[in-house]
């Protein structure tokens, strides 16, 4: 396999596999947050703030994978 082909493959795999975990994670976080608001609608402000924070943490991992794939492609 030529190095060019390996680079393309690496770029695609890096972001493709790297987005699996965070996708599932964000889904779980959102689901639990919706459940919590459903059980206690008065706590919506606090639950929403914590949810956004947790989603940012989970998304950061997907962004690390994206940065690796961009570095492989463009550097």
């Amino acid at each position, binding site marked *: 396999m030529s190095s060019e082909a390996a680079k393309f493959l690496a770029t695609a795999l890096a972001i493709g596999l790297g987005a699996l975990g965070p996708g599932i994670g964000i889904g779980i976080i959102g689901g639990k947050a919706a459940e919590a608001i459903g059980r206690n609608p008065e706590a919506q*402000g*606090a639950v929403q*703030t914590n949810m*956004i*924070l947790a989603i*940012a943490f989970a*998304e*950061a991992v997907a*962004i*690390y994978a*994206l*940065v690796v794939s*961009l*570095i492989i492609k*463009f*550097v």
Partner: protein
Amino acid sequence: MPEISIKAEPLFKIAGFPVTNSLFTSFIVFLLFLLLGIIYSKQAKVKKKSKLVLFVNFLLKTIYQLFESILKEKTVIFFPVFGAFFLYILLNNWFGLLPGIGSLLINRSPIFRGNNADLNATISLAIIAFILIQANGIRYLGGKGYLKKFFNISNPINFFVGILETISEFSKIISFSFRLFGNIFAGEVLITIIAFLIPVLVTFPFLILEVFVGLIQALVFSMLSAVFLNVAISHH
């Protein structure tokens, strides 16, 4: 195929120091921010407040309430720093979406480039946040009290937890900088590629997504540093 480079391209040199296009853009945003501050402070002294003053007051109050839920009674002390982080990162992110940023070229490299799409800028913001958190931790808990969180030799388990805490402190710099850089740079690349593939109209939803992402990333950076500061200041 449009030229996309992770490094910001230098435009000119000031006394041997190369000024890149993203540094140049950050100068412009800084001047805009300064101008906004000067206009606000002039108009806020008048009895009958103008619409700009009312709007900025509303904005600042909302952000203050956001930080109050995290920092409780210390918000008064730290709000200038975190409000500045939030507004500066937000202005930089949104400025990178204006028409002309990234598309006006001077020998095949853009004249302007959103500042947070440059790893240098985000690493410097992350280092500022890191130093802020450590210095305030030492200021509130005392040097020895703060170091006890990391070097706890009462227990072998606590010793390992201390080492993990130290590593996690340094990894915060990496995570802060790469989160912001990755989001903004990937957004730029996305819009460039989409505009290259279908030059008409299709970039519109992606621009709206980037406006939203810019807001969220500014929010997350400042709120996360507030949360870490709270953890570093609090006892036990």
